[in-house]
C-alpha cells in the first residue's frame, strides 16, 4: 500500500483501517506505534489523526457493530426512534458495547443512504429501509449466525 503514494505518510488513513481490521475492530497502542513507524510519523501525529476521525476505535467493539444513522433525512422518517428502540432492546446506549460482547451501538451522522432511509450499517454491510420490526428480526438473525 505504501508504494501507491508518493510519501509514506499519505498512506496513514488506509493503513490505520487495515491495522484496525486486523486487530479485531480497534487500535491498540502497539498498532499505533507500528503504523507510526512504517509511515515515518510521530505517535503524537497518529494519535491526533485517530482522535479527529470517527471511524477509528480505541476500544474493542461488539461482534456486530450497529451503526445507526439519525441524521436529517433518516431523522425525518424515524431514525431517532429506531435508535431508541435498538438501545432499549439491547439494553445498551449508543457508544457502548453489550456485556456479552455481541453488539455495540454507534449513532452516526449521514451515512449516505438518505433516499433509502432509515439506514444502518452492521460492521460493513448496509441495511436500508429499516424499521423497529425489521431491526428486531435482524438482531435475532445475527444472534443465530454461527
Amino acid at each position: 500500500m505504501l508504494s501507491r503514494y508518493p510519501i509514506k505518510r499519505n498512506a496513514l488513513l488506509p493503513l490505520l483501517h487495515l491495522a484496525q481490521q486486523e486487530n479485531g475492530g480497534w487500535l491498540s497502542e502497539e498498532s499505533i506505534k507500528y503504523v507510526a513507524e512504517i509511515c515515518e510519523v510521530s505517535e503524537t501525529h497518529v494519535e491526533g489523526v485517530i482522535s479527529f476521525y470517527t471511524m477509528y476505535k480505541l476500544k474493542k467493539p461488539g461482534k456486530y457493530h450497529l451503526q445507526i444513522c439519525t441524521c436529517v433525512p433518516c431523522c425525518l422518517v424515524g431514525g431517532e426512534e429506531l435508535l431508541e428502540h435498538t438501545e432499549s432492546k439491547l439494553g445498551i446506549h449508543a457508544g457502548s458495547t453489550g456485556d456479552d460482547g455481541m453488539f455495540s451501538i454507534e449513532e452516526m451522522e449521514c451515512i449516505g443512504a438518505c433516499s433509502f432511509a432509515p439506514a444502518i450499517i452492521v460492521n460493513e454491510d448496509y441495511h436500508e429501509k429499516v424499521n423497529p420490526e425489521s431491526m428486531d428480526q435482524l438482531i435475532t438473525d445475527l444472534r443465530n449466525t454461527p
Partner: protein
Amino acid sequence: MIEETLVLFQNIRNPSYDKSLKGYKKVGGFKALKKALKMKPEELVEVVKASGLRGRGGAGFPTGLKWSFMAKNTGKPSYLICNADESEPGTCKDRELMLKDPHHFLEGMMIGCYAINCKHGYIYVRGEYFPSIKSLNEAIDELYAAGLLGENALGKGKRLDLTVHTGAGAYICGEESALLDSLEGKRGHPRVKPPFPAVSGFNACPTTVNNVETLTCLPFIVNEGAEAFKDFGPENNAGTHLVSLSGHVEKPGVYEVRMDVTLKQIIYDLGGGIRGGKALKGVIPGGASSPVLTAKEIDVEYSFDALGKAGTMMGSAAVMVFDEDTDVVKLLHRITRFFNHESCGQCTPCREGTHWARLIVQDFLKGNGNERKMKRLHRVGGNMMGTTVCALGDAAAMPITSFVTKFPEEFEKYYTQAAA
C-alpha cells in the same frame, strides 16, 4: 408529468445491465476514452469548457475552467483527485454510480486524468462506503487485468494508475482542501487559500478535485459533443443532474433530471407527492447547508442559477421534504447538531458558533424560548457567514438564519410562558 432524463443512469435503470467491464463495453463503454486519447489534452479541456459542465459536488464551479487553472510547467506531477466523500446530509447519488456503474465513472475519471496530465489519480471515498469501495476496487482490478490501467493505459508509454483511498468519518473532508490534507495523512483541516490546489494541492503539487458525478458526465460529453450536453437544460446550467430525493415523499430515491424541471415537479411527479396524503410544510433543496424553502416557494426551476436567485442553492442536489406534522425546531436542532459534530474546530467562529447555536436551539426545545433568544440565534448563526476559513461556517449559518426567518411561528411554539 415529467420523467427522468437518463444519461448517467442509462445503464443503471436497465435491470439486466451487467456492471462488469465486459458488460460496460457491451453498451459502448470506453469508446469515449479512445476518442479523448486522440485529442490533445488542451483540446479536451476546451471541449469540457464549451460544454458548460459545472461541478456536481455542491459548489457548481465550471469544470473546464477549474481544469484550466492547473499550474503548468512546474516540474511537479499533476494530480486529479475524485471527491467521493459524499457526506452532505441527504446526498446518496455518488454511491449509486460507484455501486452500480463503476466503469462509467472510472472512464470519466480516466478522461479527466488525461486532460490534466495526471499520471496517478486518487479516488477519496468516505470510509463508511464499504460496498462502494469494494465495487470500485473490483472494477479497478478488472481494468488493470485488461490493460486499461497501468502501463500504456493512455497510449504507448503513458502509464495511468488509479488508487482508491478511504476516508475515516469526517464530513469536513468533503471540503477540497481538507480532503487534500486527509489524503496526505493528516487531520482533515481545511487550508488557507491562497495558495489554491491548482497551484499547490496534494503534497504541494498542482491538483484538481472533482466530484464523482462531474467526472461521470465526461464520457457523454466526449462521445456526443459539448453542444449535445448543453442542450439538456437552461442557459448556463448544462447537462442532467442526479437528485437525491428523501424525506416524507411516497417514492424517495435518486432521480436524473434536466435542470429545467421545477422542484415541485421533482417532488410530486417523480417523488409521488407527500406520503400519507399530507400537506407539504417545507423543503431543504440542496443538502443540509442550503437555506430552506417553504411550501409556497417550491415552484422554482431546479437549476444552479434559479435556485441561487431564489435565495437558496443547488448544493449537492439533495432534496429533503418534510410534511405538515414535522417539528421544525427539532429538525433545525438535528441540523445544528450535525454541524457541531462535524466542525473541524480550527477557526473560532465555526468552532464556538456551531456549538453555541446548537445549545440555543436545544434551549428552545426545553421550552425556554423567547424573542431575545430568537434574535441571538439569528445573530450567532449569521455571524459565521464569511468569517471562517472554509465554507462549513457558511453552510452551518445558512440553515439557521433561513429557518428562523421563514418559520418564526414554529419557534414561537417553544417560547416559555414566563416573562422573557
